[in-house]
């Protein structure tokens, strides 16, 4: 079957089988920044934004995303022109192995769009689905707080 997706601002048609998962389509099409961690819907590494909302691409069929927009980490910033969240994650030491980071930053982006001034508890709840075994989360919370402040123009 054919589906139409807008991925990081580019609209295209893709040939998929009914059972093709979104993560497999994305990685097949070169969006390798979408990471496969547990492959069973728990760890959050495969998070992408579907019309701005975080979803787990490993437990979703590609066809369910038909006619919607998908944002991967590449869609929000580049090495030369990073998103504030990407900058803050690096500066605050929130990136160790980095495997969870694309998913975590996308969850954070969705959170900050809905709630530009989250309390620490709200950040924890918003990013609870993104596992990180390296950092102990301390620096990641700090990065989101700092990014929120900068995005609001407070700093």
């Amino acid at each position: 079957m054919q589906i139409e997706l807008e991925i990081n601002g580019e609209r295209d048609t893709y040939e998929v089988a009914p059972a093709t998962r979104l993560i497999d389509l994305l990685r097949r099409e070169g969006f390798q920044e979408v990471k496969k961690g547990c492959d069973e819907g728990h760890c959050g590494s495969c998070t992408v934004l579907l019309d701005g909302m975080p979803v787990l691409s490993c437990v979703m069929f590609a066809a369910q995303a038909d006619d919607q927009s998908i944002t991967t980490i590449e869609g929000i910033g580049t090495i030369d022109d990073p998103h504030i969240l990407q900058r803050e994650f690096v500066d605050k030491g929130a990136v160790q192995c980095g495997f969870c980071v694309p998913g975590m930053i996308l969850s954070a982006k969705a959170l900050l769009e809905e709630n530009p001034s989250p309390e620490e508890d709200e950040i924890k709840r918003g990013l609870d689905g993104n596992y990180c075994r390296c950092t102990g989360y301390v620096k990641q919370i700090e990065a989101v707080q700092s990014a929120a402040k900068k995005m609001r123009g407070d700093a």
Partner: protein
Amino acid sequence: MSKTRDFSEVNQNVEKVDGMALACGQDKYVADFETGDELHLKILRSPHAHARIKNIDASEAEAMDGVAAVLTHEDVPRVAQTTAGQGYPEPSPYDSFMLPRKVRFVGDRVAAVAAESEALAEAALEKIEVDYEVLEPVLDPRDSMKEDAPVIHDEDDCHTVIPIPFEPERNLASSVEFEHGDLEEELEKCDVVVENEYEAQYAHHCPVEPHICIVRKDPHGRLVITTSTQVPFHVRRIVAERLEMPEKKIRVIKPRIGGGFGGKQEVLIEDITAAMVLETGRPVKFEFNRREEFASSRTRNHEILDMAVGADTDGRIQAIKMHILMNTGAYGSHCLTIVCNSGSKVLPLYNKANAISFKGTVVYTNLPSGGAYRGYGATQGYFAIESLLDELAEELDMDPVELRKINHIREGETSPVFAALGEGKEGVEQTIESCGLEECIEQGKEAFGWDEREKRRETGDKTKKRGFGMCTLMQGSSIPEIDMAAASIKMNEDGSFNLHMGATDLGTGSDTVLSQIAAETLAVPTDDIIPYSSDTDMTPFDVGAYASSTTYLSGRAVKKCASNVRDQILERGAKMLECDVDDVELGYKEVAGPDGETVSFSEIAVHSLYEADQRQIAAHESSISHKSPPPFSAHFAEVEVDTETGKAEVLRYVNATDCGTAIHPRLAEGQCEGAVLNGISYALTEEFQFSSKGKLVNASFDSYNVYKMTDLPDMETILVPTYENTGPYGAKSVSEIGINGPLPAISNAIYDAVGVRMRTGPFTPDRILEALEE
């Protein structure tokens, strides 16, 4: 000795060299090297804990469209080996095979399939007919050495390659013993003696990226193994042995790695994938699914520790007994060294005891194999001793902090344990040259509010009790006189440097930290260092990322190499300035002559490469260590226990850690925080649950809990600077020590809250309720 120095690149939070590429999803992990032409490898896993394979019929699987090959034990070389990525010859028994004739745990390898897709490979697994002779399993380490216990390794080709205790006919994987003084006599003399048994449970590393490799042949027929490993050079050697081919036919590349924590210090995927490439002539990818990651990789060793501590009425520790029964599971990977570390990284902390009795007995069971895991035996050892010291403090009616303060090792002191317990052989004597533990205790206490803790005890809710616990810790930095690290540096026209090193960055930030050390030595910004690591063709050797070695040992190699390059720069600079080398000075990216004349690094490099008396400015150096200087740490936990549900919640956790000079303070804090949260998660929730037949039943994040962001307590990390003279710019290790504290600190806090001693981990609501009811 001076505790702070004036540095420009080390002890600074420079930008992590791969940070932005990772945050933008651009840097590559193994899976990102997939090109689409690979076959997919899947392993048929044993459904039985203990069985002999009588016959395998793979004909139906082989005949399936899209299946390229099936390998069974009849098709691959039978080479007894260990999967442990350790220095060679390894102190682990050679008891495992690429494909065994006998399976020893549920999840052991039986056969391998390579097919055009994962789904096809999985379908083919179901078509393989295996006829098993099911044997009685051993599922409790206490039963392993009983007279009538089934023998797990009864094939006569398992052996050891160095003389270490190994009696497979009794299910004894290894053992170690060390006696200092006369324990019984000293205990007899003590005013207070406490003794108890502790049990530290199985657990898993849970890296977010599972084990994965892609193997392909290059145009010259060499095998190129791109793999998620902590030990690329050990992978090359072990795969070469398993496939009976020379190392020159193999190149191992480690790209970015999604975490390891010891689990990737093990050769679990590369051998069979390489064999499949040889069989099919095609590139092959093998990635563990999450069940395999839990059930078929390696684990925290389950240990049962029989402990005693005796002291005089002043609280001076006179005697320590630590007798360990360690369950290594089906294979003895790392088993002797882990049990040794339960003693060697723990007992020297209380070095004034007149008598120490240490015994480690390691037995096989038909359960998943133990292996390296952050803390490496010290985690289990600290649970026992630091909990027992809390019991001792109570007997003595003494503040647990004071008890530590009068007993812990100090600068200028040694312990007989250092010389006695090594890695499969005797250890190396050492005197402590830097110890910030007193300061860690003071600063940790202050930040935690230890002395004011009674004010926080009242919860206002009768069913909720609050308690406070603490512990102190040490670890090591590399394995002395065994581990080796090497680095090479060359200078480029613009005054930048390529830094090539065997050291393995598995997400820890070592590429950054080692670049900082090179930059500090060469007087350039870290940005002028171009690091490249862990490629067996392109970089020098390094044993790999384990034993808390990289910052210390690989850092020493990098510093030595950079110093050599710096000397060459000064020499060339002097020649260009037409003066004596003793009259020039190293400046920031330049060399200055006696009259204030300067030549820039760029001019020096161009001169050396193109202009006169050309000779490349470059060096190669290696380093071994004769010491393993311990980092130290004090941990404090505030815990609330709900007496109705049994739930223990950590409210606040403080760790104050002496890692010498923190080369990158923020990354060092991150190591502490990550290790501590992993430890808290281990203390409160993580465990393996087995069926009555030995099958791991919670092999999923669904049922094996790891701590998520909402589980994070209020956490504070304090870095306490010391200066370790043998380390690069005063640095010691930091990565492992933090995981050792939560089990005892939380256990002690639970006791302080509700008066029950939790001596078996994890401290789940069920266990706490049960203890409360007793």
